[in-house]
């Protein structure tokens, strides 16, 4: 971690303390980025293995998370009060759960 002659302390992802002190906004960001990677993975698998129910469910789950957290980012970008960013995070998770429940139970997925 040395930087020339200076010694700079940086976040160490292997340190449990760093994860314990991770705050809601950071979790929202992490979940959205990780869900994006899983969308790519599950979409590719879905292309080769269509109409597999577990795979469909997992794909829907990560899309719902990514989309609902995207709405949160969109609202804040448009000027939503940053004081409600934690509440927006929780609301995003609820919207994702509701969206997943609705699509899985009420839309024909060809399974």
């Amino acid at each position, binding site marked *: 971690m040395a930087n020339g002659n200076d010694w*700079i302390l940086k976040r160490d992802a292997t340190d449990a303390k760093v994860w314990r002190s991770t705050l809601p906004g950071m979790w929202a960001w992490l979940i959205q980025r990780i869900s994006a990677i899983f969308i790519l993975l599950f979409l590719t698998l879905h292309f080769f293995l269509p109409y597999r129910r577990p795979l469909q469910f997992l794909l829907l789950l990560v899309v719902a998370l990514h989309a609902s957290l995207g709405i949160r980012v969109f609202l*804040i*970008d448009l000027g939503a009060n940053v004081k409600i960013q934690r509440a927006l995070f929780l609301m995003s998770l609820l919207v994702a759960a509701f969206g997943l429940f609705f699509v899985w139970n009420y839309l024909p997925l060809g399974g």
Partner: protein
Amino acid sequence: MVYTFNIFRFNPGKDSKPYRQEFQIDLGDADKVTVLDALFKIQQNQDKNLSFRYSCRLAMCGSCALVMNGKEGLACKTLVKDLGSGPIYLEPLRHIPVIKDLTVDLKFLIKWLRKVEPFFIPRNPSPEPAKIKPASRERQVIGLNTECIACGSCVSACTMMHWDPEYMGPMGLNRAFCLIADSRDLTGERLEKVAGENGVYRCHMEFNCTDVCPKHLSPTRGIHHLKRQIFWQGVKKINPFRRGKNE
């Protein structure tokens, strides 16, 4: 009550690498004992070489910012009892060079501030005082963001400072926001600078700076205001009905 402090120790002139040292101190009835009080007690009774920075002790100067149990804050404002009964981990601010133990080189904060031309440039040279009412929209937009005490907590909490040390950082961008949103200031090239590679678009909206700010400010809010302003300025430039207006 006896508390255990696990403190980051490093003397660049002497030690080859940092290490941690545990101190146990009896703080008695610790209801109103701050982390800074505990550090004084450790320095006076156990290790006179322990280095840390402080000045006002009133949460006004920002000198005593530290990472306490993984979260940034002011040592003079944080009560020991609020950090739990387990070992209390104290570290210097991240992303800023360590001088010794918990003391960091604050001139690096100035380096990031300088990138945004942090000084007021009057738009109108008139000696008459400007009239901006406290309830005006302009003043409301800037809000409390002018209250920054430059403690560096936001710079330490921002993970983007880890990946891009040239990033202007939440503290510099908050200062830029306060000036750009002020109608008395001649923005000049400041907006173009913050729109650059190491400017506002490095912010990924993690809200770490907002969550740790000891003055409860939101640099993220300022950064997003700047992003919208850059967007609307771009829209104005491509609006065909406005072409030639400024020529």
